[in-house]
């Protein structure tokens, strides 16, 4: 595999990224997307939701998929971002462990 490093984004950075992407998909200003709202409250279909996850994984340069429940089961986008940041940090720790 490639040797690219995982982007260890903070929960805040991930939250901003998700909000910007949701705003783009539903065509509103990012300020209109509340971080306290759950992801499934925006009427985004499953195809677009998966595209968003794949783009997020690419942006973070992750070697593995993020569990979808981090996005779908979180009570708010803010919680989703916190969960994703923790998962990213775990993956980076694993990557660090095997790198020369």
């Amino acid at each position, binding site marked *: 595999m490639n040797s690219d490093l995982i982007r260890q984004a903070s929960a805040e950075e991930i939250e901003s990224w998700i909000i910007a992407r949701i705003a783009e998909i539903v065509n509103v200003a990012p300020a209109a997307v509340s971080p306290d709202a759950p992801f499934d409250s925006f009427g985004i279909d499953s195809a677009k939701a*998966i595209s968003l996850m794949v783009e997020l994984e690419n942006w973070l340069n992750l070697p593995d998929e993020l569990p979808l429940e981090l996005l779908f089961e979180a009570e708010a986008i803010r919680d989703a971002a916190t969960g994703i940041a923790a998962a990213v940090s775990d993956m980076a720790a694993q990557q660090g462990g095997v790198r020369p």
Partner: protein
Amino acid sequence: MIQDEQIEFGGSAAAIRHHYDVGNDFYSAWLDPSMTYSSAMWDGLPKDAPLEEAQQRKLDYHAESVGAGEGMRILDVGCGWGGMMRNLRRRHGAAECVGLTLSEEQLAYIEQSGDPGIGAVLSNWHDYRPDRPFDAIISVGAFEHFAHPQQSVDERRGVYREFFQACRDWMEGKGRLSLQTIAYGRMSPEDANPFIANEIFPAAELPTLEDIVVACKGLFRVERLRDDGLDYARTCEMWSNRLRGAVRSGVVDPAIHPVEKYSRYLRMSAAGFRMRKIGLLRIAFATE
């Protein structure tokens, strides 16, 4: 475009081959060792139980739903690679299992298993005529293929009713049927994603719970019913991760196999289950 396309009963053979004849090697790279290509079951297991264990739980659940036991003759409609039948023989004492499949690759896989108590027939349920009755019937992940998107609701229910009637007849009016199928949840048929509808499962239409209840009326009594959509979400995510791992380790070559397509399909399905757009019904029926 108008095509002179005949609607086939009991699942279009061409459509089934489109999906399942990608190659046994491809599926074995990311399914569990029992080659079970349907949702696993975590009920009664720890949340982090591995896929293999949850697939075993699912196989046993259906066996228990039909009261599988010593000496029984059991039919598996849509038997896949035969995992259900092998489990019925090994762990539940079934004397004889017969599986129906429309995939030649699956038939060949089962025929090389070497168990004289397990047989497979290349036939859809509509044309199948058993020479002897069965004591019980299990069908997992086949019902999704029975109806056609071009059929009206009444026509679809008519097909489902024929299936329930056939099951009843094959058991001579006495026995249990355990069914597992994806069904529409909060999503209606019109909202179905064209990628899944056209690319992955052409010529398939999902039932609603209502369709099933209406179609079985007077033929079977619903004994127990579960919607385990989150089980399927987790199963799809695990498959997708295993597929990714198989690519990384070189077992699957993306230049040969439709990795991108399947990965997208598996994750979209998982999202659909998590959003409750679709659900996973597990229904145990008994003759009235």
